[in-house]
């Protein structure tokens, strides 16, 4: 019963994150949304961990936090460079990959 609420919270956060990633034009906001997604995963891990009574999930969650910190660092650095080169961080302007 308790776990359901955790999972629901996780799912809600995940959906918010996905929505943000898909709709936001601002690269920083996209990065923020990605953080939301990662944290929803964390909540899931912790919830299942509490259910199973172990500590593996906690460890994974800690790892994810560390990785997320690194990832957002790299991401923000890229955003910064893009801004320096183009004076804009709108993702719509970044369409060099168009085939």
């Amino acid at each position, binding site marked *: 019963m308790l776990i359901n609420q955790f999972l629901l919270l996780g799912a809600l956060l995940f959906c918010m994150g*996905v929505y943000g*990633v*898909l*709709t*936001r*034009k601002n690269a920083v906001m*996209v990065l923020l949304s990605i953080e939301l997604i990662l944290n929803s995963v964390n909540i899931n891990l912790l919830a299942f961990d509490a259910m199973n009574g172990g500590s593996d999930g906690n460890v994974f969650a800690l790892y994810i936090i560390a990785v997320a910190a690194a990832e957002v660092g790299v991401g923000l650095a890229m955003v910064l460079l893009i801004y320096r080169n183009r004076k804009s961080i709108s*993702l*719509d302007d*970044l*369409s*060099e*990959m*168009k*085939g």
Partner: protein
Amino acid sequence: MFAEEAAGEAAHAAAGWFLEHAWLIPVIPAVAFFLIIFFGKKMPKGGSEFGILAMVASLVIAAGTAYQWIDWSHHSEEPIIKSITWWESGGLKFGIGQHIDGLAVMALLLVSFISTLVQIYSTEYVRGDRRYTHFFASLTLFSAGMLSMVLAPNMVQFILGWEIMGLCSFMLIGHWWEEEANSRAALKAFFTVRTGDMGLLVGTAMLLAIFGTLDIGGEGGINHLAATGEFDSKSMLMWAAIALFIACIGKSGQFPLHTWLPDAMAGPTPVSSLLHSSTMVVAGVFLVARLYPVFHTGLDINIAGQHFNFIAVIGGITILIAAALAFVQNDIKKVLAYSTVSQLGYMMMGLGVGAWMPAVFHIFTHAFFKCCLFLCAGSIAHTGSHHSFDMKTDMGGLRKKMPVTFWTWIVSTLALCGVPFFSGFFSKDEIIDSAKHNHYTVFGIIGLIGAFMTAAYMTRATYLTFFGKARGGAAHFVDGHEDHSHDEAADEVHHDVDGLDTHRHPVHAAHDDHGHGDIQHGKPLPFAPSDSPWQITVPLIILGALAVVSGYLNAAPFKLHYFEHWLESSMGLPFGEEPGMIPEPPTFSWAAAAPSIILVALGITLSWLISKKVFGEEKNGLQGLTQRNALLGAGHKFLVNKYYLDALYEGVIVKAIAHPIARAAYWVNQHVLDGVVNAVGIGGRRTGEWVYRNVDQRVVDGAVNGSGATARGAGGVLQPVQSGKVSMYGALLFGAAAVGALVLVLVNS
């Protein structure tokens, strides 16, 4: 090994604290090394305080150990062995620990004592050096290496200490590596010693094969087994002894690998002093003394009717050739270096003729007076001759201006020459006497000649340094009204030379404040032309006193045999006349000592008179004799070129061996390898052409073209998907994930 260890533990339960904890002696400087490296630069005195503190702590423990050992040796002959397993390989255990007996205690005390004095001396001598901290770090590690070597309970730890010293000697000799000559000297020292070190590895491996153990002492140790004859192959033992002795030749600068030692003078003087008195070069002698039963049995020393053996021959040759070389050196440190080589020859010869005790005693006494002499040379260069070591151009007449240095030098010189009642007399004369007594007559005579030569070349060096007229660097400092017969231009030249000198030894940049910049003609110098500061003179005085006193620990003329009593158990062999025993030392008589005393007196007098003639002020026929007389000139040139041994090694051996090998390798490379490679290449090309025509063009290309066409078609279909919009990619990603999740749910349900 463990049973023996346990038994040893039980037996030594009564041994004192210091004897049980002697392993701390090398550990403390080793720890200090890391402290200096990591924190030295932040300390107010640049890390030297760690080094000095560590050496003092080691000295205190070594002194305690010596005190307790003296007590111990009254009622036991057992060494105190402790060892823990360091690593294991294939059932072989390699231990690390301590093996305390008389020899080890003597060396521990000696090394920690000399190291302490040298470090105190260095605080003044290398003050302001740009690598001051690293200097002290290397110095401390060097002492740690030697200390761990002398108390090694097995050959592995012995090699460990031996190699640490090899490395540190490289770092210290090349301390001022900015000048190419110094780094070349360091490399030369390193490689020459390495050449010998191969012998140590081979010899150790052979010992392991012969005895099945690497432990040195104790019941099942190498020494015991060799002494009691518990081995299969005598000839193998002989080869092991020869291999080990080659290592000693390299390390102890014996003929023919002595060439590195004088070049090692490129290092700072405290380093030379430490290297040449109690550490590095003594390591080889120590190895022979430590494994004496192996050498004694392997080389049949003291067998009836034997007049020569490998060790004695090498030692004897070394005495004479090194002493002869010392006559033609102008560099005061090089005179001392060759003198060290020659004295090491005495030690080796002593060991080679079965005079273990006098040889080890000579290590002991030699350490003090040779260390003192080197430090005197450093003191002169530091304050007397303005950083020059050249006796002919920059010294002379220093006796009044540097009284402390002068008198300690004189005392040590007398000890080195073997003048009666100084320490060198008691040890060196005993070696010569034992050689005759043990029926090695030839070596007795060589020893006598060596004593004569030692007295002569030391007198020459003393005269050049302290007597006569002040020259060059020394003249600048002797009085305020210095001799200005050399005019402005000459002075300029001197400044230039000095500038070079400063450049060469970065340490001296720190002394620029008393450099020539503010020298006014006829005015006193900014710093007193007197003796060095206390950090330099106090070690000198202590060592000078010991150069006299240390001999009385084993003074045969006065029936004093303390040293012998303390160290007897370390010989590993009993006294006796049978084969495999060491002959009793001869009883001292002044009649037997008379020839050497007379020769020494003669050497000093003759050399004094000749020096006065040759280097004195009056013009006479002896000056420039080597330029005029072809025969003498040739001899001089032969000596100046160090018997052409360096030329032999570099010009002949390296050319004759390395170059043909290189040429042969080149030929093999060009003809054999290239031929093979070319043949393979041609074969490969033919195969390649066939494959190209048949496989590549038809099969592979067909497939590639086909897949290419397919891909292009698919690409055309998928092209619109690649919009370049990040959010669209994200949507596809999440969509795919959602589809995947859906599939997963369906499959699992």
